[in-house]
């Protein structure tokens, strides 16, 4: 087990709460979280349980990061077309 993964795991243990929301609840709320964040508001402060789940769950966190970056591109009218994205695949 790599050191950085172990340290991350210790952090996760340290921040464990007795009650944590599930992946389904996270999925349900994450689009709202992303739009709040992209509007400039402090999404983590407004939705702390969701933030906590994202810190703990690598799968949900990866989906959130992709969603956030995609939504940010769309907001700037820079969303790549299907052809553009196809070109990125070697």
């Amino acid at each position: 087990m790599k050191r950085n993964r172990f340290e991350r795991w210790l952090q996760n243990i340290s921040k464990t709460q007795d009650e944590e929301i599930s992946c389904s609840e996270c999925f349900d709320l994450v689009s709202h979280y992303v739009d709040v964040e992209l509007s400039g508001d402090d999404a983590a402060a407004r939705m702390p349980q969701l933030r906590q789940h994202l810190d703990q769950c690598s799968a949900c966190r990866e989906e959130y990061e992709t969603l956030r970056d995609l939504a940010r591109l769309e907001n700037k009218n820079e969303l790549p077309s299907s052809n553009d994205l196809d070109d990125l695949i070697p």
Partner: protein
Amino acid sequence: MSHTRTNQEWLHDLKASGVVQEAAIADLRDLLLRAALYFFSRNLGDFRGLSQEEITQRAEDCAQDALIAVMNHLSDFRGDSKFSTWAYKFAINMAMMAARRERWKGVSLDELASSDESHFFDWVLQDKSDGTAPEQSVMQTEVQKIIQEVIERDLTEKQRRVLFMMVFNDVPMDEVVRHLGANRNAIYKMLHDARRKLKSGLQAHGIEVGETLTLFGTSR
């Protein structure tokens, strides 16, 4: 083709019939395909050995599956986000599962589920040769023993398996879900319960977990 519908227009058009609905579905499908391709373009390492055509086909499959999911969940859309943001997450979810499935196909998870945790701290022992202070070394060993004790004594067999796969061997959650025939919520709960037991176990020995970060992070 326009993707500039308001939320209300999306819902109206997708629930309509005829050419209005067809156009909305086509536009939605294009958005979902772009989301799937975007995820794949960030995770090309999961597709080693596949041609561009094969990867693109997988993206199209994800977009189609996501389209079905979105249509089936239209009544769940609360309007607290942009419709496109809400819809993208279905495609990203499908794309992630597809990518991880491709990367991990052919890998036996049975072996990873029964890893021997005695190798878990090997790197800690290696670090001791770099001049770790004796007191720090003793504390590291103490924490290691407590963690091992909790894992062996307090975790259920399933919790141990999930811990070994995901935390020790970095197996993605969706692959663990598939391997155990479970779902994400169940796997997350197992890890959550395991974390709670580990936190309690360390605290019972007077160790605040946050302090262990310094203990293991400053041995150099």
